[in-house]
């Protein structure tokens, strides 16, 4: 009898494993987050004009100064032209044929706590693996509960189309003096901080997409870390586009006061649709003396189908300003999604001895196009920057690294090291490198290296001869190629990123 039970148990385990394998296989090659939440939405009228800008401002209950700020940006935007310099080809975007504001009807009255949030919304995030219940850990790492609790806590701000649905761990963060809330709320609750810093890193008229964002941003996250505070947990924002024909314009503002530290994570997904959708975000980070910010992104917007239908057009302006001496910023990005990626997270190294780092993996498969990189603007003395970019192209995709390293005449004794490597999988795709290097003093040192190669046949053969399947072997080699960047990610993200790398290359071999 005892023996039989053991056998049953074994059988069950095996069944469990098999089921999981079957599910994994079924989900492979398909965009995992392509489902949509059926929920009643309310929209602003179609298109964008001054009334829409006012309406968004009104829906957020904003003070007049904010409305004026938006209108000023909108007036400027009308004068601007869409940039065409990137190596991106897409049909003309009709800015008047989409919605600029969409929120679930149930969010009309702001829920006071997560318990009041529409269960459908909570279910959405649960399905995405995003914990909106406190004391939970980020999904994807089992057994993490056993590890010391505090270190793994992640506070989440969940943004659904145009509004923030909820933010976790606010009380605990408040006790540490950390402000973490939707930006719509910060505009009302902390107007002095917002007035002081909003638009100070990415000015209203910075570029076409940032200016549009300044006019119509609906929500996003606000973070303030007080002096000499190490944020007690990782902060994260999860962006979900759900509504059809709607653009998402979120704005994130992070302020790290003197001597503080925060690690911030950002994730994003969207349903599968035939029609492309616009996403134009702005992230501004202000870093004061001796403070440090780590900003990690796993961008997994819907990339469009194999024929290039649909997908997110992702035009994002991200910039960190190391305003104080010895300030430090680290951007890490894993870009696997979006039909079009136009994104250059940048560092202004203004303070003496400040440091900027940029680690990037950009994967483009099928008909995806990515034009991404960074800018390192060295203004202060003894500033340091490091760029490690890994671009992977497969299918018929085009992947471009575009970057700027600028050494100002006053940035004495500064250093930059740039490495951008491209990997091509298949002979129908493209990999491009467009770096700009401007050196205006001689005590600084700039080194730039770039290589382009294909997946090494010997490495593949080695894996294959040990019984590893072809797709898995490619994923292994690619993960090795990306190692330096994956290592720069927080652990939870690194695991997600690693599997994303494999999934987004599905179907590219053979």
């Amino acid at each position, binding site marked *: 009898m005892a023996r039989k039970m053991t056998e049953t148990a074994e059988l069950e385990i095996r069944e469990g494993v098999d089921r999981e394998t079957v599910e994994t296989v079924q989900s492979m090659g398909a965009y995992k987050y392509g489902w949509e939440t059926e929920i009643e939405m309310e929209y602003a009228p179609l298109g964008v004009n001054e009334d829409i800008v006012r309406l968004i401002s009104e829906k957020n209950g904003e003070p007049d100064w904010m409305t004026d700020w938006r209108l000023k940006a909108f007036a400027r935007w009308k004068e601007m032209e869409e940039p065409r310099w990137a190596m991106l080809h897409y049909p003309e975007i009709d800015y008047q044929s989409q919605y600029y504001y969409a929120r679930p009807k149930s969010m009309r009255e702001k829920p006071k706590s997560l318990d009041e949030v529409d269960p459908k919304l909570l279910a959405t995030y649960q399905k995405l693996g995003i914990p909106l219940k406190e004391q939970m850990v980020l999904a994807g790492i089992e057994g993490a509960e056993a590890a010391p609790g505090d270190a793994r806590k992640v506070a989440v701000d969940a943004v659904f189309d145009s509004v923030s649905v909820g933010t976790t761990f606010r009380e605990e963060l408040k006790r540490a003096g950390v402000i973490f809330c939707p930006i719509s709320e910060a505009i009302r609750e902390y107007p002095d901080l917002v007035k002081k810093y909003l638009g100070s890193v990415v000015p209203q008229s910075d570029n076409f997409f940032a200016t549009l964002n300044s006019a119509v941003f609906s929500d996003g996250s606000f973070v303030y870390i007080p002096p000499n505070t190490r944020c007690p947990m990782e902060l994260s924002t999860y962006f979900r586009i759900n509504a059809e024909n709607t653009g998402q314009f979120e704005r994130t503002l992070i302020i790290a006061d003197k001597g503080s530290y925060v690690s911030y994570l950002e994730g994003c997904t969207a349903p599968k649709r035939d029609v492309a959708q616009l996403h134009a975000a702005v992230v501004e980070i202000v870093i004061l003396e001796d403070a440090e910010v780590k900003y990690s992104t796993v961008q997994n917007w819907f990339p469009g189908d194999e024929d290039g239908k649909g997908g997110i057009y992702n035009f994002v302006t991200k910039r960190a300003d190391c305003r104080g001496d010895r300030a430090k910023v680290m951007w890490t990005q894993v870009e696997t999604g979006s039909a079009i990626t136009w994104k250059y997270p940048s560092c202004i190294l203004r303070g003496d001895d400040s440091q900027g780092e940029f680690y990037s993996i950009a994967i483009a498969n099928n008909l995806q196009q990515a034009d991404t990189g960074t800018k390192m603007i060295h203004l202060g003395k003894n500033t340091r920057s490091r760029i490690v970019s890994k671009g992977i192209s497969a299918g018929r995709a085009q992947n471009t690294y575009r970057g700027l390293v600028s050494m100002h005449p006053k940035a004495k004794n500064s250093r930059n090291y740039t490495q951008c490597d491209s990997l091509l999988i298949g002979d129908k795709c493209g990999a491009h490198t467009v*770096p700009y290097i401007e050196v205006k003093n*001689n005590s600084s040192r700039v080194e730039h290296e770039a290589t382009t190669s294909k997946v090494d046949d010997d490495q593949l053969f080695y894996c294959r001869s040990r019984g590893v399947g072809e797709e898995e072997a490619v994923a292994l080699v690619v993960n090795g190629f990306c190692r330096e960047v994956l290592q720069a990610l927080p652990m939870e993200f690194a695991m997600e990123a690693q599997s994303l790398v494999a999934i987004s290359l599905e179907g590219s071999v053979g």
Partner: protein
Amino acid sequence: MAAPLRKDDAREAATEARIAALGRPGGGFTAPARTDALARLTAMGLPTRRDEYWRWTDPAAFNAPEPAGGAALRVDKPIFEGRDKVRLVFVDGVFDAAASDNPALAGVEIERLAVADRADIHWAKALYGVLEAEGQAPVARPFAALNTAAATDGLLIRVTGRAAKPLHISYRQGSERSDAVLHHVVRLEPGAELTVLETGTAGARSNLVMEVDLGEGARFHHLRPQGRALDRAMITHLFARVAEGALLKSFTLTANGKLTRNEAVIRIVGDGAVAHVAGAALGDGADGPFLHDDTIFVTHAGVGCESRQVFKKVLKHGARGIFQGKILVRPGAQKTDGYQISQSLLLDDDSQFLAKPELEIYADDVKCSHGSTTGAIDETALFYLRSRGVPRAEATALLVLSFVADAIAEIEDADLASDIVARIEDWLALRQG
């Protein structure tokens, strides 16, 4: 919406003014090519700082209807004097028969463009303005189109065998206001071989185009120490088409000159071909403004080809060095080996190096890399030399020479390379005082 229109109006007006001031030479076999080139120039317009490939170099001096000119003429110490060669001399863009050798070289036909252009039929018709036109995409090169339309003279060189000695095109500047527009066409038949030396300053303002068509297995060596006149403005274009198994090697030395832009547009169309483009630029702002711009575009359209771009710049006293280089690998150009290096040595804190080393790759089985470095002289190396009793100036000179060595290594002929080294040593010696 109004602003950009005005901007285009300004471009159009500048282009019209420039074209109006141009002479209309030619009329023989080049006539259709000149008409087409003028239409191209009108369509693309003259460049401005807002154009991607002119962001770091102000084209105003080339855009002006008349050259600015300048007083400071410096007669160069002759280079390659001791070498056996056939020398052809242009003074302010005008051929000087008296100063030139008899253009007789076995296996090489040499004609003047101004003379040959009286006929309607010529072998060069298939090339004149043709390689230039092909080199206009994807990046516009308006001054090359201008050259095709308005070139007053040049050489038409057809090589059928292996030339026994180099052909030396010697430019001299006599006038402070000369505006030289010269256009050379070189055709190397399959298996042919030629070395072309280009020296000196063609005019107060020079616009030089060389179109080179390399047949299968042909070998073309190009060595160009550009003149040291301080006030000159010079723009050059080298357009080359490289067939199967052919080899092209071009090296340029630039020392001084307030404004130099050297563009090379190399298209490798056959399999197994080799193209190397190299350059060393030495700029000292103490002698007057110095801006040197290398804009290099290498396209791989053949299988198993090799390309190298090796560019070094030594800059001091506010000199500016610019490198814009690109390796473009077309779909199907598998087994490409592409390499590009751009480096600058900033001898003081005022000088600038601006670089855009690009790769654009549409084939997967390739090996392409580029590197770019900028920095001061290596203090450790300097200390080492000084600790062994080498005076500072001499030690610096040694380190500069070792810095440019990789570019000079691209010159195959050892004698010619040593002449180039001697000229660099001269430049350094002048600055040791």
